[in-house]
């Protein structure tokens, strides 16, 4: 039990509402790293103009980045709600041809999701445990993917 949760447990009944609000604020703090990564990705990626790398790469659309960050947020909320723990925070990076990469590199597994610039194309993913355990596929990026959820809880 955290210090804050201990404090809440000791509150008088009339303080319950305020304590609940504090608890919500405390939970929200667990997303600070994720929010920082999302804000960072907006600054780094949306500021790139066409041919930003001198190799002809196109700029990135807000809509593509929003699809990527919506998935990451939804997943983090699901992990928090279901398991009461923080999901690992990925890197959100510029991908090829206006797409967005979501990349987790953990000690025991690695996963790369690519959200294409074309909203009509499916998002694609590949991950492994640096051995024989792999996950690979594609899905409608704006929907839940239970296979990915499970993998991200390894």
């Amino acid at each position, binding site marked *: 039990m955290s210090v804050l949760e201990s404090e809440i447990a000791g509150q008088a009944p009339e303080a319950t509402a305020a304590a609940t609000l504090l608890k919500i604020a405390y939970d929200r703090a667990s997303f600070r790293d994720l929010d920082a990564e999302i804000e960072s990705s907006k600054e*780094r990626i949306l500021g*790139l103009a066409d041919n*930003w*790398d*001198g*190799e*002809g*790469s196109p700029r990135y659309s807000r809509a593509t980045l929003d699809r990527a960050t919506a998935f990451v947020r939804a997943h983090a909320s699901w992990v928090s709600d279901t398991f009461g723990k923080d999901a690992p925070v990925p*890197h959100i*990076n*510029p*991908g*090829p*041809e206006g*797409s967005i*990469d979501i*990349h987790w590199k953990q000690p025991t597994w*690695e996963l*790369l*999701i*690519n959200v*294409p610039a074309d909203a009509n*194309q499916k998002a*694609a*993913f*590949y991950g*492994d445990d640096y051995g024989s355990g792999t996950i*690979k*596929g*594609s899905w409608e990026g704006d929907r839940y993917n239970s296979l990915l959820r499970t993998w991200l809880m390894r």
Partner: protein
Amino acid sequence: MVDEIEPAWTVESIPDVDRVFMRAHEMHFRDGKLQPGVFRQHGDGMSVDWEKYSTPPETKGRAKKPSENAVVGFIVGVVRAIPSLEVQHKPERSNRAHSNVMGLPSHDPDLVEIRLKLLRISTVVMELEIPR
């Protein structure tokens, strides 16, 4: 112009033990580490330079803005060990070292897998001037 009077270079076979180099823009680095977004098809394939005819500084010098680029290297045989990938010499008049990594799939899970595997076998041979 030199390019107009020089004959085209002969296409050669690149040995497995040789290295090829590729520029990596500074936006593809996080906390000093290369990210998988750097790997993409450009024309016929993923453009690289064969070490027989190019050094890392020369590869970097061919960027529009060299100061914004690092250089990464691959062992050709290790690239070829990834299913579907091949490395072919494709010299240009102005760049005898030019080669292509061929066989990258179009957007789908296979491409995502190959990008992650290319990331794992790449080595930064020339760091960014200003680390990111």
